[in-house]
C-alpha cells in the first residue's frame, strides 16, 4: 500500500494530471461569481443546480475542501518528486573524483575518438584549446599509460529545478498560513468618526480590532475628463480615545500598523450638511446667505417669515443637487418648493418677496478601507525570489562536463573525448564536431 502510494506520488504523470485538473476546475470559479450571499445564488440558479453547486462549495471554491485537497496532493507530489531527485543532484554537484573512470569514454552521452600523428605537446595544446572553448580551463592529470584533461562548468545550475519546486511549496505554505492566521475585510468610516470593526469578506462575520481607526478626512480628485485621479484618506489610530499615530492612505499606498495593512478601497457620500441658501429680498434687493442644516428653522431677515429645508437629493430630475425648501409665513399655509444650485435653470425660485438659490453645501464622505493581515506574506515573497533564482539558474546556465584522454604512443596517439551537458546537447555536439574537424585539418597541413 505504502509502496503504491509512494509510486503514485513520485510520478510526474500525477503532477501533469493535477496541473491540468486544477486549471480546468479553476475556470468554474471565474464563471460563477465567488463570495456572494446565498440569497443571490438562490435567485440566480434553479434549486437543483443550486444544491449541486452548494454541495461542492462552488460559491467559494478556491477555499473548498476539494480544491484544498488538490493543492495538498500537489504539495505531496512535489515533495516526493523533489526528494527523489536530491541524491542524483548531490552526486552531480559533488566534487569530481580525482581518478577518471575509463568507462566514461564508452558510456557518456557525447563521445568522440580520433587519431593524431602529431607531437604530444601539440596534441596537448590542441586538447586544451578544445576544452577551453567548450567548457573552461581544464585540469591535467598524468597516469602511466595516458594523459587526462578534465573540465566542468555550471554544476550549480542543477539546483535550479530544486529551487523552483521548493519555492512552489513555500508559496503554497504562505497561502495556507494566510488563510489560517490572516483575515481580509473592509471598514467603512464616515469622516470624523471612528470604528474598530472590520466586516470580513466572504460573509465570515466581523472582527474587532484592538484599537480604533478614525477617518479624519477623505478627499477625491478628478481629472478634467471626469475620470478619478486620486482617493485619499487621512486616518488616525486611537487607543482609549488617545491618538497613537496618524497616516494617509491612497490607492497603491497603504498604511501599515501592527502588521495590519490598510488600503484605500472605496468611498461614498454618507450625508450632506451646512447648506448655504441665498435669499434675495425682491423689495429691497438685499441678498442674505442663510446657513442651514436639515429641518432647522431660521428667520428671514427683514420679515416675519421663517425658512427651513426638509430634504436633499443629489440629482433632482437631471438638474443636479436640490433641497426642498419650506417657507413659513404667519397667517398663511406653508409653502414647499425645490431650490436648485447656482448656474442652473429655474434656480431662482420666486416666492412672494423672496428668491431662493442653493449656493453650496458640504458633502460628508465615508471612506471604505480594506483591512488585511497576512502572516504568510514573507514566505510567499521568499518563494517568489527563489523561483526566479531557480529559473535563472536552469535557464541561463548549463552544466557541462568534459573529459579528454590521450593514449597510445608516438606516431599514433588516440584522443578520446567524453562529455555531458544538461541541455542544448545538439549545439554542443555541433561545436565539438567543428573543433575536432579544425584539429584534423591542422593535422593534415
Amino acid at each position, binding site marked *: 500500500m505504502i509502496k503504491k502510494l509512494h509510486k503514485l506520488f513520485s510520478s*510526474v*504523470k500525477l*503532477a*501533469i494530471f493535477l*496541473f*491540468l485538473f*486544477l*486549471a480546468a476546475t*479553476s*475556470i468554474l*470559479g*471565474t*464563471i460563477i*461569481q*465567488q463570495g456572494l450571499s446565498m440569497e443571490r445564488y438562490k435567485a440566480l440558479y434553479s434549486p437543483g443546480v443550486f444544491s449541486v453547486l452548494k454541495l461542492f462549495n462552488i460559491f467559494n471554491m*478556491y477555499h473548498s475542501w476539494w480544491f484544498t485537497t488538490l493543492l495538498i496532493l500537489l504539495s505531496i507530489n512535489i515533495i516526493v518528486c523533489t526528494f527523489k531527485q536530491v541524491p542524483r543532484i548531490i552526486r552531480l554537484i559533488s566534487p569530481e573524483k580525482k581518478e577518471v573512470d575509463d568507462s566514461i569514454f564508452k558510456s557518456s552521452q557525447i563521445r568522440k575518438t580520433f587519431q593524431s600523428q602529431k607531437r604530444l605537446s601539440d596534441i596537448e595544446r590542441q586538447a586544451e584549446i578544445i576544452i577551453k572553448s567548450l567548457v573552461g580551463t581544464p585540469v591535467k592529470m598524468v597516469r602511466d599509460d595516458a594523459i587526462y584533461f578534465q573540465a566542468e562548468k555550471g554544476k550549480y545550475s542543477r539546483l535550479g529545478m530544486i529551487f523552483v519546486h521548493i519555492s512552489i511549496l513555500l508559496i503554497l505554505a504562505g*497561502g495556507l498560513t494566510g488563510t489560517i492566521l490572516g483575515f*481580509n475585510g473592509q471598514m467603512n468610516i464616515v469622516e470624523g468618526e471612528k470604528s474598530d470593526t472590520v466586516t470580513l469578506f466572504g460573509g465570515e462575520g466581523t472582527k474587532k480590532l484592538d484599537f480604533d481607526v478614525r477617518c479624519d478626512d477623505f478627499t477625491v480628485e478628478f*481629472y478634467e*475628463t471626469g*475620470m*478619478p*485621479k*486620486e*482617493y485619499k484618506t487621512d486616518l488616525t489610530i486611537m487607543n482609549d480615545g488617545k491618538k497613537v499615530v496618524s497616516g494617509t492612505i*491612497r*490607492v*497603491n*499606498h*497603504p498604511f501599515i500598523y501592527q502588521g495590519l*495593512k*490598510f*488600503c*484605500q*478601497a472605496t468611498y461614498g457620500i454618507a450625508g450632506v450638511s451646512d447648506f448655504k441658501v441665498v435669499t434675495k429680498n425682491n423689495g429691497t434687493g438685499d441678498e442674505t446667505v442663510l446657513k442651514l442644516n436639515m429641518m432647522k428653522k431660521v428667520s428671514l431677515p427683514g420679515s416675519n417669515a421663517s425658512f427651513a429645508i426638509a430634504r436633499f437629493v443629489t440629482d433632482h430630475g437631471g438638474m443636479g443637487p436640490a433641497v426642498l425648501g419650506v417657507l413659513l409665513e404667519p397667517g398663511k399655509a406653508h409653502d414647499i418648493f425645490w431650490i436648485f444650485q447656482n448656474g442652473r435653470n429655474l434656480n431662482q425660485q420666486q416666492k412672494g418677496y423672496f428668491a431662493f438659490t442653493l449656493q453650496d453645501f458640504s458633502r460628508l464622505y465615508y471612506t471604505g478601507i*480594506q*483591512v*488585511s493581515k*497576512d502572516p504568510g*506574506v514573507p514566505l*510567499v515573497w521568499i518563494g*517568489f525570489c527563489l*523561483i*526566479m533564482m531557480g*529559473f535563472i539558474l536552469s*535557464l541561463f546556465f548549463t552544466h557541462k562536463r568534459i573529459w579528454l584522454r590521450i593514449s597510445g604512443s608516438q606516431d599514433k596517439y588516440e584522443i578520446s573525448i567524453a562529455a555531458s551537458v544538461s541541455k542544448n546537447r545538439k549545439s554542443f555536439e555541433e561545436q565539438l564536431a567543428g573543433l575536432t574537424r579544425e584539429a584534423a585539418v591542422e593535422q593534415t597541413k
Partner: protein
Amino acid sequence: MNDTFLISIVTFIYFSAAFVFLISIVFNKKSVDKWALIITVAGLILQTSAIIIRWIHSYQLGIGHAPLSNFYESLVFFSWSIIFVYLIMRKRYQNNLFGLLSAFFAFLILAYPSLSGKVNCAIQPLIPALQSNWLISHVISSFLAYACFAIAFGTSVLYLLKIKMKPSMLPDAPFLDEVTYKMISIGFVLLTLGIITGAAWADRAWGRYWGWDPKETWSLITWLIYGAFLHARLARGWRGVKMSLVSIIGFIAVIFTYLGVNYVLSGLHSYL
C-alpha cells in the same frame, strides 16, 4: 508627429515584411531574406519611436505615464513584443517562417484597432489603481510572455500542418517542435515574473497578493497549462502532436487571460 499615425505606418510595414518573408519562403530566394529582415527592423524602430513619442506626449498633456495603460496601448506593446522576441531569437532559429509568423501576428494585432473601430486610441489619464511603480515591470513581463506564447502557438499549428499535409515548404517537424518548446520555456519564466509583479502590485493596491479575481485565476490557469507542457516534455519525454495540442490550448488560455476576462467576465482588472 502623431504616434497613432506612425503606428498605422508600422502596421503597413509589418504587413510588407510578412509578404517579403512569404516570397522568400515560396521562391526560396536567399537574396530576399535580407530585405525582409531590414523591413522588420525598420518597423520595430519606427514602432519604438511611436511609443516614445506617445510617452512624451502624455507628459505634455500633464498626465504623464508610460504608454502601457489601456487596450490600445497594450495592443501596440503586444505587437512590439512579438517582433522584439523574434529579433532576439532569430540568430538561433534562422528560419524565415519564424519571421513570417512574427510579422504576420504583429500586423494582425496592430490592424485590429483600425478594423474594429471600437478601440479608443486617445491618451487617457491614469486612474488611481494604475498609478503604481509596478505597472511597467508587470506589463512588460506579461506581454513578452504573451509574445513568446504567440510564436509557440504559430509553430505548433505549423507542426500539425507539417505532420498532416507534409508540405515541403515548411521546416522539419523536429525543428518546429524545438522552437515551440524553447518559446514556451522562456514564456513560462516571463509569465511567472508577470504574475509575481502583479501579486506584488495587488498587495499594495488591494492589500492581498492573490484574491482569485478572474484575471488572476486565468493567469494561473495559463501558468498551469504551460507548466504541464514543460513537465510532460522534460520529465516524460512527450513530443509532437500531443505537445502541439497543449501549446494551442495554452495559447487559447493566454487570449482569454488577455481579452476574455475583460469582455466576458467581470472583475477588478476591468482595465487591461
